[in-house]
């Protein structure tokens, strides 16, 4: 196992500044997810950790070892890619043992490790098959097995489930979570899929434009987004956004009933007194319907209870479609 310390990391491709002065500490045995939209720099960062991309500045440490310029093969990492990257002419067993054979590991030890990994991933019956005879999920298990046999301190996953259908994704997600629990290894996982991030991670680093916007637990990232980008990136449907002026009480409000009621909640901002009348954006994760459409039309009003400071107004369902949660 190993901790990872990234300090002031810069990565540039020509004039494009992909990762910008990034600091990140990953704990020993942690499952950290790098989450963000396409082009945010998450895969580039992962490749830099794996030694597949040169950095333009800053340092990378595994435990106390400076690995900024260490060859990938000497970093003690195992990588799993979206495209599996299996050798099509080799059997599963040969694919899994390839790195060990190249490294000159004795045959009995290779056999022992392949047996261990294949049993862990439940692919023992596939060892004699070639990749073309495997499903997508089985191929990805083999790719994970190939990483496992290397005795890596750190596992890097680059969108490993993106090529799989929804059912397989859910199954392998669970397998990866179990694997992390069983091995206790440090795992760094790149995805743009918020469900994967929220279900797998100990902590999530939400990235945008090469900068970490928030580094926190899944619950905090979801419930207490550090900024508007994080709040609106996570969640389906997206957070509801309502513009309004921040005012401490219901009195002297002129911005409309929605804003009035939301602003009367007692939620306080430290700089409220200084900025009381500046424009604010209110984002609400959940808006629920109530069974009593008996409010006066054209106006809303607020209702207080022990748990809720709620707002009612007559609206109209404009679109409706079935969805599925899981």
């Amino acid at each position: 196992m190993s901790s990872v310390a990234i300090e002031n990391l810069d990565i540039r491709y020509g004039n494009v500044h992909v990762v910008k002065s990034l600091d990140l500490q990953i704990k020993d045995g942690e499952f950290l997810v790098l989450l963000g939209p396409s082009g945010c720099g998450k895969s580039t960062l992962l490749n830099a950790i794996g030694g597949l991309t040169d950095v333009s500045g800053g340092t990378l440490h595994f435990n106390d070892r400076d690995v900024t310029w260490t060859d990938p093969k000497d970093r003690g990492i195992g990588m799993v890619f979206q495209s599996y990257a299996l050798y099509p002419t080799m059997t599963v067993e040969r694919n899994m043992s390839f790195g060990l054979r190249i490294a000159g590991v004795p045959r009995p030890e290779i056999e022992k490790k392949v047996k261990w990994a294949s049993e862990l991933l439940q692919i023992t019956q596939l060892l004699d098959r070639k990749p073309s005879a495997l499903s997508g999920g089985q191929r990805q298990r083999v790719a994970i097995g190939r990483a496992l046999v290397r005795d890596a301190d750190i596992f890097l996953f680059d969108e490993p489930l993106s090529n799989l259908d929804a059912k397989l994704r859910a199954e392998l997600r669970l397998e990866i979570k179990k694997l992390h629990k069983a091995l206790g290894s440090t795992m760094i996982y790149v995805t743009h899929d918020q469900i994967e991030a929220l279900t797998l991670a100990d902590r999530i680093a939400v990235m945008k434009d090469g900068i970490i916007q928030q580094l926190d637990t899944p619950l905090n990232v979801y419930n207490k987004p550090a900024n508007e980008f994080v709040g609106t990136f996570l969640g389906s449907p997206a957070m509801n956004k309502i513009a309004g002026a921040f005012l401490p009480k219901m009195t002297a409000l002129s911005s409309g009933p929605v804003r009035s009621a939301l602003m009367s909640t007692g939620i306080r901002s430290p700089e409220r007194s200084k900025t009381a009348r500046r424009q604010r954006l209110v984002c609400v994760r959940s808006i629920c319907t109530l069974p009593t459409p008996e409010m006066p039309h054209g106006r809303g009003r607020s209702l207080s209870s022990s748990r809720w400071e709620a707002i009612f107004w007559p609206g109209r369902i404009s679109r409706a479609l079935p969805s599925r949660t899981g």
Partner: protein
Amino acid sequence: MGSDILAWSDFEGITLSHRLSQEEHCETGEPVSVTADVAKASFFEDGTGARL
């Protein structure tokens, strides 16, 4: 695990999204009253987007 309904309502030009349970009936155009759990509301600085 189970199905639910995503719905959008229109209030004074603001489109709001809702997640409804499968027991709740809703049809396009139907008047509806809604409530927001403001304990889960987030406040952001307009422009910078920073959390307040």
